[in-house]
């Protein structure tokens, strides 16, 4: 493994781990607050899967000598995170413990955007030049159909529902579209990753994502304005919002105060 290959691989693994980790956390903040009880069951299951996927990628980083996987998830500073900014943004005003006024439309659109992308990325990673990553992707992708179906159902139904639902969904769509470009970014090491066969190229999965999302938009008669953007910066290069720092301080509070207390 050349130093250049290793650096690109580690950058890629942080993108994969951090995407799943932070979105699983944002999803878990919804527990008990979703529109109905069956959704609580489904959403928790999806979040638990995503957190499990993050653990797999953090373990690969541990195996590459990056440090203990729990430390990687909980003790790195926000600037070391490589998740897309879209995935770290707060669910809405308030906190889950105090007057949550979360936006379900935002949750649906964000998860739908992410899971369409996640399927495309996993299919590309099945051919990765790093065998442990190719094997993990081959396994994770077999479960992805259930997540995708879940969010697509919500997306289509709310888009085709009442005027109010449509208005709220379109507002969420423009918010998510403004940062969807960050999902599709591979960051500054992207060209090296593709060159070494670690992933597909950024252009390839951008085209695939646009095509897949375009088909869903066509079903519900929606036309986005402009290209997916990076309004809050490129998380793949360590650019983040204050929302990430806040989430990480909550997530790691117990671990930081007493690593033994967590007991996992």
């Amino acid at each position, binding site marked *: 493994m050349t130093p250049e290959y290793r650096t690109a691989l580690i950058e890629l693994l942080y993108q994969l781990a951090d995407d799943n980790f932070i979105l699983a956390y944002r999803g878990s903040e919804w527990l008990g607050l979703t529109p109905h009880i*069956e959704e609580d*069951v*489904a959403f*928790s*299951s*999806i979040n*638990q*899967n*995503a*957190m*499990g*996927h993050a*653990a*797999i990628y953090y373990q690969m980083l541990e195996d590459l000598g990056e440090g203990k996987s729990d430390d990687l998830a909980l003790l790195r500073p926000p600037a070391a995170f490589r998740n897309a900014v879209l995935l770290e943004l707060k669910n809405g005003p308030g906190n889950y413990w105090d007057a949550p006024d979360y936006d379900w439309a935002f949750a649906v659109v964000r998860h739908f955007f992410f899971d369409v992308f996640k399927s495309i990325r996993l*299919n590309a990673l*099945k*051919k990765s030049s790093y*065998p442990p990553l*190719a*094997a*993990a992707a*081959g*396994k*994770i992708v*077999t*479960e992805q*159909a*259930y997540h995708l*179906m*879940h969010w697509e159902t919500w997306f289509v139904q709310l888009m085709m529902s009442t005027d109010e639902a449509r208005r709220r969904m379109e507002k969420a769509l423009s918010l998510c579209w403004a940062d969807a470009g960050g999902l599709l970014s591979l960051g500054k090491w992207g060209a090296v990753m593709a060159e070494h066969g670690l992933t597909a190229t950024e252009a390839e999965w951008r085209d695939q994502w646009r095509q897949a999302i375009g088909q869903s938009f066509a079903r519900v008669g929606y036309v986005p304005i402009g290209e997916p953007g990076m309004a809050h910066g490129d998380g793949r290069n360590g650019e983040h919002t204050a929302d990430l720092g806040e989430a990480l301080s909550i997530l790691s509070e117990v671990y930081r105060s007493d690593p033994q207390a967590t007991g996992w």
Partner: protein
Amino acid sequence: MDDEGLKTRVTEALKKVKDPELPGIDIVALGMLETVSVTSGRARITLLPTFSGCPALDLIKKEVVETVRRVDGVTEVAVVFSFDPPWTTARISPEGREQLKAYGIAPPPAAQRPGDPWEIECPYCGSSVVTVENWFGPTACRSLLYCRSCRNPFEAMKPVAHVADERPRPD
């Protein structure tokens, strides 16, 4: 006892280990066991996780180590998890499918391919007049259903399929 004899005994012992989230079925019938090897009394067991993010893996590993250590002649136990090949529901044995049913969980279709419709029979009365209440259930691998014939709620194991042709071939 020689290593070959020990291997048979280790494999037998593994049939006593249950998935804590599916206590009705053993890990061998579930198709999680990929390989067992024994070299000079040292056992090495490769297991395939059913769902990639399954939180029960640590417990299963602990249970496997404790069980195999009790096999006479085994001096050391190593357990590794692998995604290669990926576990699919096709790996569940016919006995495993019966064990699931007896536990009240509808087994997934034996030969599922991606995109196939999911045909589910009620584990209690065998009726296929059932409705899905929730694709997601109490664990990652199960869904919640309702039988319109015998009016029992029940769970079903989600089919997980894999197209072998899509896997990269080593050059």
